[in-house]
């Protein structure tokens, strides 16, 4: 058993739902107990879909377990096909149904429907949501896609986007535009926006663009060996990655094409003087492997941040992230336990967090600015406005998103200048966090404080520390204590504080 409070990923059948809901003309018959329909609201509320997910549940109850529950499943299949008239169905079991003896795949196949029936084996007690996406899409492609003649023009398939994917909707549009600039048409985009008959004609494309390895790598590999389609390895998130992606596509297709970057503003924005203050900002990056990997490169090479910590929650990407971490000289944190993430953030004391919904809350608690770069996300990260992460417009979007929570250069300069000003005192809080300003109370007499490691902060040092702006004070305290520990000092004076400052100066 594993004690869990918040989870980064749902169970694998939610992954299968993400594939089914992204598609059209496909129906999912899920053997599941009453209550598992909760997952519908992820799609209708978080993603604000205007239709019910194409999922029929058997919703068995305790009284059904005494008898044969397989007829519930068979009835559900029959009713779903009669009512929704899908081109194909996928069938499977949720975690509870996995424990009872019915075999959805076998049952559905014996019913001899005249549409394809694709059985899913999703081990709920070992794997999670992303695996569910990847496996489901793989099974659909394996059952339906066939080798066929290539299109005359150079075309590709966009594979990986699903329902409930972080910015998948707009990434599709951005990539489609980028490829179109290069003279490449999209043959099929899948699973999102595709039908089973679209999947059947995937073989006509010259190559595949693997947008999200988490949700479609198995399918990409299968197409490579069975349809003779190479797939792209670079995920075009960030300016550098987008240019590498363009080069990779050029190599695959042999087309000497270029992309229109006339609306790319990120490089100039990052070069402009107001961005100087971003230099060396220490960021902690956490999320799914793909977005973390991309964010690290942007952070260091395109924003001038220092990557202070990096990690991901999906074990499938652990090896990749460990490699990236090594390259950045930091330890990789591979965990799905948000308490461990919180601990790491507290230890590192970054000036900014790039993470998921959970890290947003951790940041709020610790008073550290945060921008969301990866699922799991909440309703506000399915925006009405166009906001891709991929391609050139994606780079523009990310510059704004990441910089917004930070105190911008001029603002930061003013804060330093007027740090003793009545409106900029500690309790006033950061203006952009909407914190409620409190009346400034008469400054309490600073007293000696003793830390965990038995290091004593002398009163003058403690007082001096309070003059440092609140948003860097945690780091100053930690640095000073580390410095004192290294020097074997047991007391921290005002001088120690400034010696430490000089020591860590960059």
């Amino acid at each position: 058993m594993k004690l869990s409070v918040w989870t980064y990923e749902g169970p694998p059948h939610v992954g299968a739902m993400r594939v089914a809901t992204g598609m059209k003309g496909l129906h999912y018959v899920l053997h599941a107990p009453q209550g598992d329909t909760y997952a519908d609201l992820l799609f209708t509320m978080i993603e604000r879909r205007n239709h019910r997910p194409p999922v029929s549940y058997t919703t068995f109850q305790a009284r059904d377990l005494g008898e044969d529950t397989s007829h519930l499943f068979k009835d559900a299949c029959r009713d779903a096909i009669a009512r929704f008239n899908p081109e194909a169905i996928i069938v499977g079991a949720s975690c509870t149904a996995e424990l009872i003896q019915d075999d959805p795949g076998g049952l559905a196949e014996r019913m001899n429907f005249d549409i394809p029936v694709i059985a899913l084996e999703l081990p709920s007690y070992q794997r999670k949501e992303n695996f569910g996406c990847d496996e489901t899409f793989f099974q659909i492609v394996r059952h339906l896609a066939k080798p066929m003649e290539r299109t005359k023009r150079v075309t590709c398939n966009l594979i990986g986007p699903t329902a409930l994917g972080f910015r998948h909707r707009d990434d599709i549009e951005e990539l489609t535009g980028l490829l179109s600039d290069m003279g490449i048409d999209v043959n099929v985009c899948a699973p999102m926006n595709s039908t089973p008959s679209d999947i059947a004609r995937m073989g006509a494309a010259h190559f595949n663009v693997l947008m999200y390895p988490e949700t479609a790598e198995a399918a990409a590999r299968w197409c490579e060996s069975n349809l003779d389609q190479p797939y792209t390895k670079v995920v075009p998130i960030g300016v550098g990655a987008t240019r590498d992606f363009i080069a990779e596509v050029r190599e695959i297709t042999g087309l000497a094409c270029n992309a229109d970057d006339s609306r790319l503003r990120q490089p100039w924005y990052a070069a402009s003087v107001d961005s100087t203050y971003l230099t060396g900002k220490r960021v902690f990056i956490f999320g799914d492997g793909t977005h973390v990997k991309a964010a690290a490169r942007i952070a260091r090479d395109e924003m001038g941040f220092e990557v202070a910590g990096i990690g991901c929650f999906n074990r499938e990407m652990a090896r990749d992230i460990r490699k990236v971490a090594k390259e950045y000289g930091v330890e990789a944190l591979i965990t799905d336990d948000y308490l461990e993430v919180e601990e790491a953030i507290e230890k590192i004391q970054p000036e900014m967090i790039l993470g998921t919904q959970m890290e947003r809350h951790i940041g709020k608690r610790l008073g550290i600015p945060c921008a969301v770069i990866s699922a799991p996300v909440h309703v506000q990260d399915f925006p009405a406005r166009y906001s891709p992460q991929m391609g050139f417009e994606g780079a523009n979007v990310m510059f704004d998103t990441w910089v917004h929570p930070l105190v911008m250069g001029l603002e930061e300069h003013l804060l330093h200048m007027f740090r003793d000003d009545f409106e900029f005192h500690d309790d006033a809080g950061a203006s952009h966090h909407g914190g409620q300003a409190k009346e400034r109370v008469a400054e309490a007499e600073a007293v000696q404080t003793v830390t965990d490691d038995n290091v004593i902060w002398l009163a003058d040092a403690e007082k001096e520390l309070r003059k440092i702006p609140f948003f860097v004070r945690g780091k100053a305290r930690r640095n000073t204590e580390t410095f004192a520990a290294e020097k074997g000092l047991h007391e921290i004076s005002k001088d120690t504080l400034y010696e430490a400052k000089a020591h860590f100066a960059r």
Partner: protein
Amino acid sequence: MTYIPTPPTGGGCRTAPVLKERGQREVFCGLTGIIWLHRKMQDAFFLVVGSRTCAHLLQSAAGVMIFAEPRFATAILEEGDLAGLKDAQDELDAQVDRLLARRPDIKQLFLVGSCPSEVIKLDLAKAAERQSQKHGPNVRVLNYSGSGIETTFTEGEDACLACMVPVLPETDKRQLVVVGALPDVVEDQMLDLLRDLGIDTVRCLPTRTAADELSVGPNTVFALTQPFLGETHAALLRRHARHLPAPFPYGEEGTTAWLAAIAHEFDVDAETFARVTDAPRARARAAVAKASEALRGKSVFFMPDSQMEIPLARFLARECGMQPIEVGMPYIHDAIHGPDMDLLPAGPQISEGQDVDKQLDRARAARPDLTVCGLGLANPLEAEGLTTKWAIELVFTPVHFYEQAGDLAGLFSRPVRRRNILGLEAAE
């Protein structure tokens, strides 16, 4: 005490034929009860023994309520736990030890059963007993099931309260126990009203903390504030307490009838009753009249969700002038829902259980002005041009008794007013 609400002229719904359906049910399981119960019981922790799905459900239902130290968690069953059952008990003990060491402030621990734990027949009752001995008297460990195979949505609260009843101390005291988790502000209003009526031995189930005194016995009478407490009702009867049947305290009329049933039991004279209730009744009537302007003459359709549907339909029909078309309930319990069914004017189809696609067909055909349903159906129905009120909010929001009567009407009128303001076309 003589206050009795006027029954409808055409007769009530108590004997109306009930459409019983079985099929796909679009409902929450009982685990969701944890979301509001843990706010009410301040020193309780809810440990679900289940799968990743259970953890994911709690997270989705808890929405933005991410706390640094939430008082609920899931012990996620892993492959190894499914292999041998003995193992699972040891594993569970280890998780509980870890949890209680980390949270010394916890005084009550609920081991909450789920579908997976029930299907593999993991004996959580025995585990609770064993752990109570180990961690008592500091921590009391209890067990109930919130599984979807056994409980629907609010029945999770019922199962939780019912598991507390057998271990309550025995008393001979003449007292009133009010059953059902209410927001603190509402509970306080209720206690004030009862005190003003001269009824001073009132206790609540659940109590806010484990240390709060609560006992039960043959001289205990109890009133329910929530319509989904069937098991708790039965458990209290087994302890020889007596139920005071009454309509549920929604709206001015429901609250007055509910108070009157108690006043009658405690021989409160009519003059005192009038003195205590007249002013808040007038306030509630005025508030409801204002908030329900947009609802008069409109039709309403209830999908089954919380068992609050019949009392709410009664409130909307009698106090807000709405016409119920269908009132769907997950379960109907005559002893509990009877008084409200007597007052709900005959006419609407009463249904129990669900076959969601067929029920949606009926709703589409009826084109109600307002459909009360879950979050999985609300946006899709809005996109079809139907105005909806999502039902889960009715459980979280303070809606009981006089001061909230206007707010309750407001919850239903807001979506109707909004559609008028926006002049929405059906979304594509």
